[in-house]
C-alpha cells in the first residue's frame, strides 16, 4: 500500500511490519510522532506507551527484548543522554528479541537543546547505528534494524535527523505482522543479565566487540552500502545517511556545470558505526582525493584517516579536519557541492552562487511566548507580583527554569528565568546556588511532565538537605510543548485504557513538604500570595500552580466567563500588554483591541487593567 507519511510515521509502520510487541518512549521534538501516531491506531497485541522518562522507556523495551519479543523505544537526542546508563548495560549484556533504539538528532537546532551527534554514543557502546536517508529507506531500515539486532543478539540504534524525521513522502508500506501473544518463562542467565563480578563483565565486553564485527559483516553481505567506483586516481566522496541525498543533488548540480560525475567515486553509507572497512578501503585505493561528507562530528572522517594510515595510502582527505566542512549546522546540497568543487579543483558553477547578502537581518525579531490563555502566563505574572510585594526588583531574584513550555518565562515581558539545562535540573541547580549563598532568594520552576520525568529526584534531594528554596510546579496536565502528550498527571478521563492518573499534590505531600501551596494561575493574586508567604519561610516550599493547558482545554470545549473591553475606559496605558505579553491583545489608535479568535477568556488582563476597561 502506498501512503504519504513522515519519517517518524515510517518508523512506526516499519516497527509494526516487523512484528513489534512493545513501543515505549518519551516525547521530544523531532522524535515524538512515532508513538503519537501509534497511539492513534487500534493495535491489539502491541503495547505502546509514553513512559515517565527515556531511561524508563528504554528499560521497559529492554525487558520485553530480554523476554524474546521485538521492542523499540523512541526519544530525541537529549533523551538518549538520560537513557544511556541502562542502554550501555544492555549493550554489554545483549538481548534475545530484536531491540531497536530510535533517536533523532537535530543538526541546525530547530527545536532547541544541544546540537549533539549521538553517533558518539554508538561508538562508546559498540552498537550498530543505522542512519537511513530517504523516507522509504527509513521505513525499510526500521525493519532491518530488528533483523540485525536479532542476528547479533544485541541492541541496535536507528538514527534520524530533523530533516528526515519531519519530512513526508509517498512510500510503499507493508502489512502489520502480529507479535507473539506471550513468551515462555525465560532462562535464568546471570552471566548475561547481571554484572556480577569482573569475569562476567569482561566476558560481556568481549561479546560486545564481537557483536559489532558481526553487524559489519551482515551489512556487507547484504550490500546495504552503495559503492560506485569512478575514475582510477580521481576524486571520491563518502557520505552517510541524510547526506547521501545532498550528495545526489550535488552531483546533479555538477552535471549541470558540465562535470562528468561518473568519474567521481561515490560510497553511500547507511551507517557510520559499524565502519564499512572493506568498501571504504576500496574507495581509498581507487582515489587520490576523497571527500568525507557527514553532518556534525567527523567520526567517519577520523576512521578514514586511520584506515589510510594503516594501509599506508598517500591520499588527500577532505572534510572537517582541513576546514572544507563545519562541525555545526545542518548540511545541504550546495554545501556538499562546494566541497566537491574544491576536491575537483573547479569553481562553483555561477548559477549556484548567491550574493553574500543576508536580508533576514531586517526581519522583525519574534521571540516565542505563551499562547493566548496559557496558564503559565498567570504563574509568571503572579511570581513577578509576589516578588515586587516582597520588596524585590525582579532582576535581583535568581530563578532557574526547566525544559518545556514553562521555560518561556525566559522571554519578554517576563524575563524572569536565568537558566535552562536539562529535564528536572532546575531544582538541583538552584540548590547549588543556595549553597553558594548568592544574595537572592532561590526559586526553581518546572512543569508537570518535567517533574515526573526527572524533577522528583531533585526535589527529594533538596527536601532531605533542607535547602531554603521555593519550587514552583506549573501543572497544566499535559506534556504540552511537544504537542500534547499524556503524562502521569494527565486527568484520568484522558488517560488511555487502563492507565492511571497520579496526583502531583499527593506525590509532593508524600515527600513530606510542610509548606505546600496550591494556587490557580488564572487568579494572579493566589500565586502572588503563595510566593510572598513562601519567601518568608525556611526549608523547601512547593507551590503547585494548576490549570489545564489552554489548547487542550479548548479542544474539549472548556469555556470561561467572557472577557469584554469597554473601549471608552481604555487609556492606552499598555499595562495589559506589558504585564501579560498576551498575543490576543493589540494596541490600536484609540484603545487596545482583543482578538476574540485567540482570547480564551482567561481573564488575566482584567486583573492588571488599572481603569477597569477590561472586565469579566
Amino acid at each position, binding site marked *: 500500500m502506498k501512503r*504519504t507519511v513522515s519519517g517518524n510515521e515510517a518508523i512506526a509502520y516499519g516497527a509494526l511490519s516487523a512484528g513489534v510487541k512493545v513501543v515505549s518512549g518519551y516525547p521530544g*521534538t523531532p522524535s515524538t510522532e512515532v508513538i503519537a501516531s501509534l497511539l492513534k491506531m487500534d493495535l491489539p497485541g502491541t503495547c505502546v506507551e509514553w513512559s515517565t522518562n527515556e531511561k524508563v522507556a528504554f528499560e521497559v523495551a529492554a525487558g520485553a527484548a530480554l523476554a524474546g519479543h521485538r521492542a523499540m523505544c523512541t526519544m530525541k537526542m537529549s533523551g538518549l543522554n538520560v537513557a544511556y546508563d541502562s542502554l550501555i548495560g544492555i549493550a554489554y549484556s545483549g538481548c534475545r528479541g530484536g531491540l531497536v533504539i530510535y533517536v533523532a538528532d537535530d543538526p541546525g537546532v*530547530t*527545536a*532547541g537543546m544541544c546540537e549533539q551527534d549521538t553517533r558518539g554514543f554508538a561508538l562508546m557502546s559498540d552498537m550498530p547505528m543505522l542512519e537511513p*536517508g*530517504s*523516507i*522509504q*529507506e527509513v521505513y525499510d531500515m526500521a525493519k532491518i534494524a530488528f533483523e540485525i539486532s536479532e542476528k547479533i543478539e544485541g541492541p541496535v540504534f536507528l538514527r534520524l535527523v*530533523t*530533516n*528526515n524525521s*519531519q*519530512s*513526508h*513522502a*509517498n512510500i510503499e508500506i507493508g502489512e502489520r505482522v502480529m507479535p507473539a501473544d506471550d513468551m515462555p518463562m525465560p532462562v535464568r542467565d546471570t552471566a548475561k543479565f547481571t554484572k556480577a563480578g569482573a569475569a562476567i563483565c569482561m566476558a560481556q565486553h568481549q561479546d560486545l566487540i564481537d557483536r559489532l564485527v558481526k553487524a559489519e559483516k551482515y551489512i556487507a553481505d547484504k550490500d546495504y552500502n552503495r559503492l560506485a567506483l569512478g575514475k582510477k586516481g580521481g576524486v571520491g566522496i563518502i557520505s552517510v545517511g*541524510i547526506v547521501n*541525498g*545532498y550528495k*545526489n*543533488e550535488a552531483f546533479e548540480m555538477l552535471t549541470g556545470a558540465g562535470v562528468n560525475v561518473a568519474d567521481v567515486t561515490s560510497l553511500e553509507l547507511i551507517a557510520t558505526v559499524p565502519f564499512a572497512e572493506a568498501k571504504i578501503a576500496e574507495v581509498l585505493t581507487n582515489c587520490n582525493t576523497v571527500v568525507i561528507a557527514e553532518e556534525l562530528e567527523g567520526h567517519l572522517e577520523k576512521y578514514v584517516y586511520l584506515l589510510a594510515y594503516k594501509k599506508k595510502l598517500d591520499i588527500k582527505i577532505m572534510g572537517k579536519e582541513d576546514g572544507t566542512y563545519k562541525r555545526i549546522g*545542518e548540511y*545541504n*546540497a*550546495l*554545501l556538499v557541492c562546494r566541497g566537491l568543487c574544491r576536491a575537483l579543483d573547479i569553481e562553483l558553477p555561477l*548559477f*549556484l*552562487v*548567491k*550574493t553574500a*547578502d*543576508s*536580508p*533576514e*537581518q*531586517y*526581519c*522583525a*525579531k*519574534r*521571540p*516565542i*511566548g505563551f*499562547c*493566548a490563555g496559557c496558564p503559565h502566563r498567570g504563574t509568571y505574572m503572579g511570581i513577578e507580583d509576589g516578588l515586587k510585594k516582597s520588596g524585590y526588583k525582579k532582576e535581583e531574584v535568581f530563578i532557574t527554569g526547566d525544559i518545556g513550555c514553562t521555560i518561556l518565562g525566559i522571554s*519578554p*515581558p517576563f524575563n524572569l528565568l536565568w537558566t535552562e539545562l536539562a529535564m528536572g535540573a532546575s531544582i538541583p541547580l538552584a540548590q547549588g546556588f543556595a549553597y553558594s549563598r548568592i544574595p537572592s532568594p532561590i526559586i526553581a520552576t518546572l512543569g508537570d511532565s518535567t517533574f515526573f520525568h526527572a524533577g522528583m529526584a531533585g526535589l527529594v534531594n533538596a527536601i532531605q538537605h533542607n535547602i531554603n528554596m521555593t519550587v514552583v510546579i506549573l501543572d497544566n496536565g499535559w506534556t504540552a*510543548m511537544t504537542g500534547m502528550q499524556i503524562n502521569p498527571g494527565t486527568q484520568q478521563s484522558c488517560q488511555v485504557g487502563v492507565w492511571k492518573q497520579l496526583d502531583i499534590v499527593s506525590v509532593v505531600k508524600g515527600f513530606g513538604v510542610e509548606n505546600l501551596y496550591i494556587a490557580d494561575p488564572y487568579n494572579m493574586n493566589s500565586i502572588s500570595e503563595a510566593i510572598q508567604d513562601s519567601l518568608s519561610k525556611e526549608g523547601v516550599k512547593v507551590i503547585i500552580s494548576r490549570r489545564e493547558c489552554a*489548547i487542550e482545554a479548548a479542544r474539549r470545549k472548556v469555556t470561561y466567563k467572557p472577557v469584554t473591553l469597554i473601549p471608552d475606559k481604555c487609556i492606552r496605558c*499598555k499595562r495589559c*500588554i*506589558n504585564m501579560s*505579553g498576551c*498575543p490576543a491583545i*493589540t*494596541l490600536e489608535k484609540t484603545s487596545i483591541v482583543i482578538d476574540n479568535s*485567540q482570547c480564551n477568556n482567561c481573564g488575566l488582563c482584567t486583573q492588571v487593567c488599572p481603569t477597569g476597561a477590561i472586565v469579566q
Partner: protein
Amino acid sequence: MGNYFDIYIVGIGGQGVLTIADILTLTATNKDIEINYYPTKGMAQRGGFVKAQLRIGRQPNKFSPSISEGGSDMIVSMELCETLRTIRYGKEGAKYVVLGNRWLPTEVMLGNAPYPEEELIVSEIKKSGGVPVVLSPELVPEYARPNLFLLGAAYGCSELNVFFSLEEIEDTIKNRWPRVAENNLKAFHAGMKAVNSL
C-alpha cells in the same frame, strides 16, 4: 524550469501556512507525482515562524527534503517581513508571492523595535534577482481564508499548472473540507483573479 519545482512557503503559526503545503502535497500524491514535504514548526503553537519546503517532481528516494540556497523556484509568504528569511533560498527569476500581512511582534507593537517597510522587502527581492508579487491583504475577500486565497494567487502566476490542472487542485480543496467547499474554492479563485489583475 525542468521537471522539478521547489517551493519555499513561510508565515506565522496560526496562518495556515502548512495547509497550503498540505493541499499541494495531496494533489501531487493523487496524481502519483513525486513529492517531498518538509514542515518546520519550531517551538511555538501560535505566533512563531513556520516554514514548509515542497519539492515537486523529484524522487524523494534520491534527493533530500531541504532546498539549497538559491534553489527555490517559487516563494510563498503569508507575512510581509518573514519573506526576508526566504530570499537566500530563491533562484534567479523566482517569483515571490507575498501576502502583505503585518503580524507584529509585541515589541514592535509597543514601539520598541522596528518593522521593515514593504519597499525594503521588495528591493531586497529584486536585488537577489527575484520577482516580487505582493498582494495587499485588502484584496482578500471577507469570507475567504487568506491561505487559500494566497494558494490561488501562487497557482495563478506560476508554473504549478504544468504539474496540476485547475480541476485537480479544486478536487483536493473540495475533498479536504467538503462542508465549506464552495467558500474555499471561491477564496482560491479570488486569489487567482487578484494576481492576474495586478
